[in-house]
């Protein structure tokens, strides 16, 4: 969520005024600091007051940090923290890659060819409303509880957004750009190669971003149901051991790793689509 036009026009003229206490109180960095302080202090306070009653169901921030250090140093089910992170990331990357490689070409073909569209679209519409997580049970029936079933869930979860965005990316291309190619003497193949593919690139990347967050949800759900490694496994172990610090530590790591993969995709997109204007968005 970057700053938008509305914001700039309303704020840009106030910058020259002298710094008064009221204005300092309204600056963003100050408010952010207050917010973060309140968040962590409130969390700590809540955890302390709940912990006093005996059954602790909320860990204090420092306890979470300690739990993370502990996971980093000591093995849990034969893997240290980095090993678990890698186990989950590996599943996400494999499933995500398979889905992207399958879904993007199918989506493009659906948008480019009416016959393909007529055959695939109804099947796709039939399967689309089923949340990917509802496939977990059947994937366990099919593939057991090893890696394959987890990768399968991720493929299912990332397939839909990848395909939809590739499909819509092509359909929303400025139609006059096709006229340009035809006026320059290009044929249908040139239209696809020089207009459809590059024009749908940003939309495909947007789809990959959505897929990525979906993939993390799926891998966690799959690991919560059954796993011997991964970040979901850490959380489940924390639950089984009644150790909220471990659960919350796992959640924190998930947040950081998921955020990291999003940043990675954004950087990749910026590298691959240098023409894309910076759009104020999510």
């Amino acid at each position, binding site marked *: 969520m970057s700053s938008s036009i509305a914001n700039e026009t309303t704020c840009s003229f106030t910058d020259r005024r002298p710094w008064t206490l009221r204005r300092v109180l309204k600056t963003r960095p100050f408010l952010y600091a207050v917010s973060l302080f309140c968040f962590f202090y409130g969390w700590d306070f809540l955890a302390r007051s709940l912990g006093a009653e005996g059954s602790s169901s909320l860990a204090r921030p420092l306890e979470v940090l300690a739990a993370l250090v502990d996971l980093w140093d000591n093995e849990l089910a034969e893997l240290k923290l980095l090993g678990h992170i890698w186990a989950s990331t590996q599943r996400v990357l494999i499933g995500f890659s398979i889905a992207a490689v399958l879904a993007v070409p199918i989506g493009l073909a659906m948008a480019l060819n009416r016959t393909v569209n007529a055959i695939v679209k109804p099947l796709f519409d039939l399967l689309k409303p089923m949340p990917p997580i509802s496939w977990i049970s059947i994937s366990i029936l099919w593939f057991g509880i090893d890696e394959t079933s987890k990768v399968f869930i991720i493929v299912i979860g990332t397939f839909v957004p990848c395909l939809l965005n590739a499909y819509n990316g092509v359909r929303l291309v*400025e139609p*006059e*750009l096709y*006229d*340009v*190619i*035809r*006026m*320059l*003497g*290009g044929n249908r193949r*040139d239209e696809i190669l*020089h*207009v459809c593919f*590059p*024009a749908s*690139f940003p939309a495909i990347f947007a789809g990959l971003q959505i897929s990525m967050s979906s993939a993390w949800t799926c891998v966690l759900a799959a690991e919560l149901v059954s796993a011997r490694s991964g970040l979901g496994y850490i959380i489940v172990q924390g639950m089984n051991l009644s150790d909220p610090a471990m659960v919350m530590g796992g959640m924190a790591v998930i947040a950081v790793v998921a955020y990291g993969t999003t940043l990675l995709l954004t950087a990749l997109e910026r590298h691959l*689509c*240098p*023409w*894309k*204007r910076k759009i104020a968005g999510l």
Partner: protein
Amino acid sequence: MTTPTPAPKGKIVCTHVSKTFIQKGKQEVPVLDDVSVEVQENEFLVILGPGQCGKSTLLRIIAGLETPTTGSVTLAGADGVAREVTGPGPDRGLVFQGYMLFPWKTVLGNVEMGPRLRGLSGAKCREIARHYIELVGLTGFEDHYPHQLSGGMKQRVGIARVYANSPEVMLLDEPFGQLDAQTRIFMEQETVRIWQAEQRTVLFVTNNIDEALFLGDRIVTMEGKLPGRVQTVYNVNLPRPRDFTDMEFLRIRQEIIDASQLTL
């Protein structure tokens, strides 16, 4: 399509072209009615008319992007033989009102698009592209993306892109409609300069009387309501570069304004 008119002499000949669009599947909208226009070899012909009078549709029909409902368009090739227009082709180049540059290609990439589609080698494409980029005065901007350029610069790229494909006929569809008034006058001067450097048959569509008079050898005015019909043809025998305050210039200008008010 056989027509009783004598064999056409012009480069582009539109004979009794009519076009009716079907809107929302039912309603018929007549856009062009019995339009006949001839453009001579190396002539700069301007089609002048207010908004929504069918002039852009006429241009798109000549470009081959639309098919006429009745009538036909013929184009004389380099060998002098007239052939009927059936679809878009590299023998005509169209400059779009909305620039229509490929946002994912640099200036160079946009300009060399045409030669590349014809299958020329990379080095040759780049040489042609650089020549025309220089002609439109954009040297130094080869590696810029369209979103980094101003409106006037974008349209120069659009013009260079069409020239690089060396079409026999240039078609320009209100190319400066989105530019501010000063840039527009400058671009008009540039257009004359480029046209004089690279003689081509040009068909230029505009809604601006001054622009039409500044550029055209002949001006075809169209009636200001649908369906579009040809109103009058004016010959402008003024030397170039033209002066916006020249007496003859102003006389024709007033004549066109008076005539156009009859149909508005």
